[in-house]
């Protein structure tokens, strides 16, 4: 769906293009595979939450080419990523780095898991402590009347 936007962007670019174009690709399949892996981690800066691997915007293409240049120059995956982050900031990463600013993002789910898990333990403990109440709530007047009707119906043949 974010690709809707990509398509919109396309409308303003010169012509349609795929994300990764054949001429961008490296001859070495291992290196190319690494480039694709890195591309999936990087955000196309002018798109809506789309990786440069998926995007057909011009800027995404420039980044893809840049990634491949770095890899060809002998960078490791981390080096190449750092090279891009140094120039474009954390915003370019689709997997934001763990920092005080993202503690809530990264640890929030686990924290919720622990809190809700403790809540469950307390819930079950209390259940066990309190003897099982088997009393059902008394019927309301309305329900009693309905029950009466039903019983009458059943009594009739």
């Amino acid at each position, binding site marked *: *769906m974010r690709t809707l936007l990509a398509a*919109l962007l396309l*409308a303003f670019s010169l012509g*349609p293009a795929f994300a990764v174009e054949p001429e961008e690709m490296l001859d070495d399949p291992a290196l190319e595979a690494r480039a694709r892996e890195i591309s999936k981690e990087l955000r196309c800066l002018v798109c809506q939450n789309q990786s440069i691997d998926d995007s057909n915007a011009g800027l995404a293409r420039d980044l893809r080419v840049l990634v491949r240049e770095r890899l060809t120059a002998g960078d490791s995956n981390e080096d190449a990523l750092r090279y891009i982050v140094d120039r474009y900031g954390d*915003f370019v990463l689709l997997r934001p780095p763990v920092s005080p600013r993202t503690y809530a993002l990264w640890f*929030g789910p686990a924290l919720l898991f622990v809190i809700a898990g403790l809540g469950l333990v307390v819930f079950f403990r209390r259940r066990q402590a309190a003897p099982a109440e088997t009393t059902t709530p008394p019927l309301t007047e309305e329900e009693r009347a309905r029950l009466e009707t039903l019983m009458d119906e059943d009594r009739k043949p």
Partner: protein
Amino acid sequence: MIAEIGHYALIMAVFVVLIQATLPLWGAKQGNAGLMALAKPAAQLQFILVLAAFLALTYLFVTSDFSVAVVAQNSHSAKPMLYKVSGVWGNHEGSMLLWILILAIFGAGVATFGRNLPASLRARVLAVQAMIALGFLAFIVATSNPFERIVPPPLDGNGLNPLLQDPGLAFHPPFLYLGYVGFSMAFSFAVAALIEGRVDAAWARWVRPWTLAAWCNLTLGIALGSWWAYYELGWGGWWFWDPVENASFMPWLAGTALLHSAIVVEKRDALKSWTILLAIITFSLSLIGTFLVRSGVLTSVHAFATDPTRGVFILALLVVAIGGSLTLYALRGPALKATGTFAPISREGGLVLNNFLLSIVTATVFIGTLYPLFIDAIGAPKLSVGAPYFNATFWPFMVPLLAAVPLGPILAWKRGDLLGVLQRLWFAGAVALAVLLVVWYVKFGGPVLAVFGMALATWLVVGALVELAERLKLFRIPLADSLQRARNLPRAAYGMTLAHGGLGIVVAGIVGSSAWQVETIQIMHPGDTVEVAGYQLTLEGVSEVQGPNYTSQQGTFLVSRAGSEVVRLHPEKRNYPVQRMPTTESGIHTTSFADLYTALGDRQTDGGWSVRIYYNPLVPWLWAGAIFMVIGGVVSLTDRRYRVGAPTRRRAVKALPTGSAPAGT
């Protein structure tokens, strides 16, 4: 004239809804039967008025009346009829009108078929439903009038976004909205129950069919959207963890949890307070989804509304609806006493685990989706949260949940025997292990996680079948007796088998498509042949084709395997001159185990074409599994225990407290 009638009907609806939202509520408090009875005709009249407005807008689109602004901006005289009609909801104003129409349909449904509901509960449910309608009607009338005229009218319209001119996407919004808005029923019932101060098995039994119907539609809507993305976008992806996708996925996750917790309320009179909260959360997430998509906060094409006043209006609506209902919950929720008790290891315990993990997963998606907005709002340096984050946080909670799915339904109510359940599932475990070994052997060297993923999928499917066999006591009693049991088994039981099995098939599709996709991106000249996953694809040529409102470059691939022709695929690159916008149409050959997927790219200067060819294993299973899940829901809906509205008045009284059939979904 028609436009003015439509506008007039909308304004009338506002007044009807005002009455529906107040007098029946007052009547229920005072015990005034006359005022309570007002809710029914009001809900029906509301439906008729909103339907009239919707039909008026549809008429304007169909007849291409460009003196109406929305039509001029979103339609074109040369558009095929299907897209003239789907254009009605392919824009902000029309889609909000559709939202309200569906709300009115559900309301009128309760009014008309809810004869067996206690009068006070029905009055309150319809009043709450009317409050939601009031908010959205006011929103439309005040900020998004679909019937606004423009002077002078243009000669022709701007046309519909070409990406929306597709059968898959034409019906995606209605199903999505049937899901979103359907959860409003659960919400209205929950709020009404809080006002009433009573939640019992009967309440759960009324809520479940509505929730189930909403869930089926939402599942179908999400599947349609995903399918569309897959074939229309040209790179074989089908889920992107895009905020707009997440907006529909969050209510789905919460709604799935609600579906399961309502079972506990119905069967065991426990988890009442939690179920009420879950109903409020599920609809709140639907509202938030609407807000995310409609307010422009995500600045994507889906956010048609660019005017910030609209965003502020929806935000205010959100605060009132969610804040109000949660406040009511905080005041009244603790008073709801549950009577059913159960041990941690029990069917109820299994459903609690389901709710626990689904809630965590929902929260995870929620945090990831809204975090960038939150960071932006507090003025910190912007950041992005994309697919890598969601893949890293979603699956650690989801995998244990999936692994536990086959166990739950076999556990006994109240106090279960986990070891016994595992013993009864030995066959599913054995088959899963066999699949694990086979996949490991065949795909040796591939992603290791995928091997376990396939075993998990097998565990789910076979586990669902084993559960059914257990119910039928298959092979343990004479076959004739098993068949007899099969006939007597409630439909809801079959529904669950289908839905859980479908889930397993979806898991297989997810694993297969993400682990073993084969991709070829290259330049081909007419006559070139390329080999992908055992298929030989020859580009025979590319020709110009004229569509109704577009021109297309259509490639022809001859696909053959082992020397014999399999199929000819025609991927297209379409250009819509009205919007000056290109779209891709992939050419797909679907077999039972995989898709062969072709997409046509740019023409190169030397006369070659850039093409993408994918071999996507198990992708068809994604859609098949989703359809199984929906069918499961529908089968469950036809369970006679839920046909609460249909019978005659005398039988309606009778239909209520029977509850004879044993254990359901």
